[in-house]
């Protein structure tokens, strides 16, 4: 799918509006949902907090190896306002977790 979108974006062809609609339809097809998770935070002596471990809905815990990137950004596929996006590494894999600053909740986006 990503590859397909990429081709569309780079085709620069006259039918771009048509492709735009097509892309929208396709993006509706892969439907993402928000899954709230429990997150363990570590707060340092300066009062800065960062996530160290996440707990999945079934109670299983995963340690965060490192935080690759952290910035203010809206979620890619689901809805939320004023979120902070963390790109983290868990078991050698890159994952993205979001923090909702308004509600103080953490979530991930899951393809359903």
């Amino acid at each position, binding site marked *: 799918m990503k590859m397909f979108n990429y081709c569309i974006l780079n085709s620069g062809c006259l039918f771009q509006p048509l492709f735009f609609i097509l892309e929208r339809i396709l993006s509706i097809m892969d439907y993402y949902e928000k899954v709230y998770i429990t997150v363990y935070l570590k707060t340092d002596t300066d009062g800065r907090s960062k996530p160290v471990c996440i707990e999945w809905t079934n109670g299983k815990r995963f340690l965060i190896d490192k935080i690759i990137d952290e910035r203010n*950004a809206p979620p890619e596929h*689901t*809805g939320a*306002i*004023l979120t902070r996006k963390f790109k983290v590494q868990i078991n050698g894999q890159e994952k993205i977790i979001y923090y909702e600053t*308004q509600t103080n909740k953490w979530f991930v986006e899951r393809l359903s």
Partner: protein
Amino acid sequence: MRTILHSDLNNFYASVECLRNPEIRDKPVIVVGSKEDRHGIVLAKNMIAKIAGVKTGDVYWEARQKCGKELIEVQADFSSYIAVSKAVRKIYENYTVRIEAYGIDECWLDVTSSVKLFGGGLAIAEEIRERIKNEIGLTVSIGVSWNKIFAKLGSDMKKPDAITEITPENYKQKVWTLSVEDLLYVGNATKKKLNRIGIKTIGDLAQTEEERLCALLGKWGSYLHSFANGTEQSPVLLVGEEENIKSIGNSLTVYRDLVNDDDVEMVLLLLADSVASRMREAGLNKARTVALYARSSKLYGYQKQGKLSHPTGNMHDIAKLAFKLFKEVYPWEEYVRGVGISVTDFVTGSEQLDMFGDLIKDERQQRLDKAIDGLRKKYGNGIITTATVLKDPKLKELDIKGEHTIHPYSFFRNNK
């Protein structure tokens, strides 16, 4: 020459709702006040609803008629809007300290002193636009110019997600061709007056002699002349300046239309009560000027301000003057949808005693006010109210003071 940006968040309330709930993004969306109390007018709409002909100020069933069953109505959630607005402002603060809010979704930024650092006004505008999109997820229209008026016109020209620069070289093509009502502060009445003497575009206005405009519009003639020519010089306020209280106001869109003077008087009394009580809370005892704002059911606005005979913080005096102003300014061609009162010109420090005033009465009133404030603090704002208001039991339940009111700061607030 200054470099001023005017940044306008596109369809702000509706965009926030779409951000929160992306499934509704492809449908017509309107944001309404509380439906049960029939504050139910459209406060904002997204692009799709706009194309369908929905206007801000429509009653929600009118919007439903225009959009059909697809229409999504979302109840306004002001605390979220304020939070998002604050986050956007944080982004602005990276480029300048001179930020002046005009309502919740618009700001002027004076970036004159940071243009060298970032490579020009246009570059700053581009960076702000990108950042708001990437970090918050909203689109913004920005106007870049050398004065506040043209910057605002610029931000209105291309929407959404666009930047327009108005320079001394291109303003005659870009601004002067616009219709005169596009100019800030040219409302319906002013437009009619101007049209009558053959002024249709902003260019016409700019080329008319100032004296002629002044004869027609009073001091506003000279303001509008400077607006149209780009010679307007009002400063963009500093961040800190906003914290100074210059005026206290409350407005209310009533759950039903107000049909006669008695109704209006009653609501004005309620508003004056809230204003007076907020004044006392802010430690401001007396004010000299009262401004009244009324909005008809067709959403035309009328306003007038007047001076009090002596500075006062008394709700009855404020309400009395507001009602007098209302009688003077409102033509009663339609029913009244909403009214607002604000007070300015606060008296601080020692004051001259009024020779004919009744000191004892004044002091008694102050003691009464204090007691009322005490009661309200303990039991809530609804615990005590004026008897006039009891005529309409639903009004009695309204908690004006407790509710959030958001309205733009006046453009001339600091230029008096």
